[in-house]
């Protein structure tokens, strides 16, 4: 990843590595089909990408587990190797790059200077704000400083993973580091959110490729996610949906329903509220996805999914006690305490009412003794 490589066109890079145009076209076709674009879009992508200079990409990692990058390395359409060796110039990624320390930082600064206003910034991980940003530092700078510096010259920012998009696990209650997502911090640049824990590799690679091929931010949903990948819920596209519609549910992981592949809604599946492409693109080169393997969807591409209650509590189940636990005793405590207070207030109200009636009766009796009937009666009324 030297500077001389980064100024080559994509076609040059392909020629140098002996990759035929046919192979490149095939790769673009696969990427286009993953994005549900027409076959014509695949050839348009190949044409556009071929003649452009390999765009510079800077990949920053903050509060994350490297799962997103692990996932990206399993991309098959396009493969990560194809993406970083042929389509883009990955100028900085502290996990993948050979350089380290001052050399790595120098490479990043060089890329930012040379491609100011043109490079795409990929961010992985949440940004901690607490303690002046001291919870994450690199090269003597906090994550906030690093992100703001890099975002200044970026053409667009792609936030990958639920940590970078919505804060993810670091943001989970009680969020000790004050972690937030990129779009909560950067408001003056287009931010494309590619959420998931981790995101589907093809979705990450496809989003980056789409941006370069069509030279624009793809259509986004209200959470800034590309609609082409996040337009439907898992439930909408789930092959177990007919069982949901027929009211056939697995009640436990080892019952007849589970063995028959019935709907996992009662076992806590968050498919109905989760927008992602797992049910269509699947994982591991289209082998399967969690529901196909018999496990409910966790809803990992939605904001605050860690705080959404137990992974195994059905969607309508109330959240009584601690996050994630449908706790009957907590409901009982609430009901009991409220009923106790209600009974106390009722007792006091009835007592007060009786006392007033008693006082009125005394007054009425006294008035009657004094021969003043009318006064007592009017008060009684």
């Amino acid at each position, binding site marked *: 990843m030297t500077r001389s490589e980064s100024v080559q066109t994509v076609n040059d890079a392909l020629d140098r590595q002996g990759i035929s145009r046919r192979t490149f076209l095939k790769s673009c076709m696969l990427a286009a089909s993953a994005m549900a674009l027409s076959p014509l879009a695949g050839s348009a992508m190949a044409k556009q990408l071929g003649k452009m200079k390999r765009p510079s990409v800077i990949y920053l990692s903050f509060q994350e587990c490297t799962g997103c990058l692990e996932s990206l390395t399993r991309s098959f359409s396009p493969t990560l190797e194809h993406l970083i060796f042929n389509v883009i110039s990955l100028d900085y990624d502290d996990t993948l790059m050979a350089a380290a320390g001052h050399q790595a930082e120098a490479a990043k600064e060089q890329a930012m200077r040379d491609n100011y206003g043109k490079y795409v910034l990929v961010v992985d991980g949440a940004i901690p704000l607490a303690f002046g940003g001291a919870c994450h530092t690199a090269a003597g700078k906090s994550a906030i400083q690093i992100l703001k510096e890099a975002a200044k010259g970026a053409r667009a920012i792609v936030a990958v993973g639920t940590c970078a998009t919505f804060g993810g696990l670091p943001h989970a209650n009680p969020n000790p580091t004050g972690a937030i997502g990129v779009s909560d911090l950067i408001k003056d640049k287009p931010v494309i959110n590619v959420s998931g824990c981790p995101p589907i590799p093809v979705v990450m690679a496809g989003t980056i490729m789409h941006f370069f091929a069509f030279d624009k931010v793809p259509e986004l949903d209200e959470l800034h996610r590309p609609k082409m990948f996040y337009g439907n819920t898992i439930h909408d596209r789930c092959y177990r949906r007919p069982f949901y519609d027929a*009211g056939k549910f697995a009640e436990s992981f080892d019952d007849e329903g589970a063995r028959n592949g019935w709907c996992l809604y009662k076992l806590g599946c968050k498919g109905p*509220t989760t927008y992602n492409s797992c049910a269509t693109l699947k994982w591991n080169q289209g082998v399967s996805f969690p529901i196909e393997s018999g496990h409910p969807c966790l809803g990992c591409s939605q904001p605050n999914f860690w705080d959404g209650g137990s992974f195994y509590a059905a969607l*309508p189940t109330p959240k*009584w006690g601690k996050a994630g636990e449908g706790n009957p005793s907590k409901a009982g405590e609430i009901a009991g*305490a409220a009923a106790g207070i209600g*009974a106390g207030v009722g007792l006091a109200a009835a007592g007060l009412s009786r006392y007033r009636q008693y006082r009125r009766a005394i007054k009425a009796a006294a008035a009657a003794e004094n021969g003043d009937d009318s006064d007592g009666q009017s008060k009684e009324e």
Partner: protein
Amino acid sequence: MDLLSIARGPALKAALAIFFFGITWRLVTIFLLRHNWQLSFAREGRAGAWSGALKSVFTFRRPRLSRARRSSMEATADAAVAVGSRSWPHPPFVRRTLYGETIGYLYHIGLALVVIFGAPHILVLKSFFGVGWPALPTPIITIISVLTLALLFAALMRRLGSPVLRHLSNFDDYFSWSIVTLVFATGLMAHGHLGGPYQDVLAWHILSFDLLLAWFPFGKLMHAFFLTPSRAIAGYLLKRRGAPV
């Protein structure tokens, strides 16, 4: 925190607290209020009066076989009416009130079936009581829900169409109807994945249920708790005075 988390978290807790507070507050207050002294003797003793209270709640009225000659079909119909006839109008009023009574009964039954035997509702009730039970098949619950919703609208039309009922109705009647209907409509929409993203519609369904819980003790929905005591008191007083119960 998203809307669904609010609906099934803090909003539900608050609604539940208001519900139980309001119910006990009203019931305790009413039961402990001073009652008028009964100046007459109990015709059949105090035990007899209490038996009247229990009978009015737990027994059915016998069919009135007023006519001497009856066909077997008429007798069967009478017997059917006799089951629960204590909650059915007297024969002279049946013709006039049949439509309203039928609608009322049917939508109450529909509500009960959907609440008790709908699969997602069983999960909610299980989180309260710790036990669950088998659900009715989803298509059956869907049909019952649609019919119940239609009956709720029929009940509203009847109320609006009758000058007397319209005159007797106030904000409480319409508001209580609106909340019940809202809970039903949003539930059906969530089930059918209509009207927007599922989590939003589900959140509105649960929020409307939260509102129903919070409103319950303070409006006419409280009839669910007042019905039985009211009838017991009526039965007690009637029996005390020697009237047949």
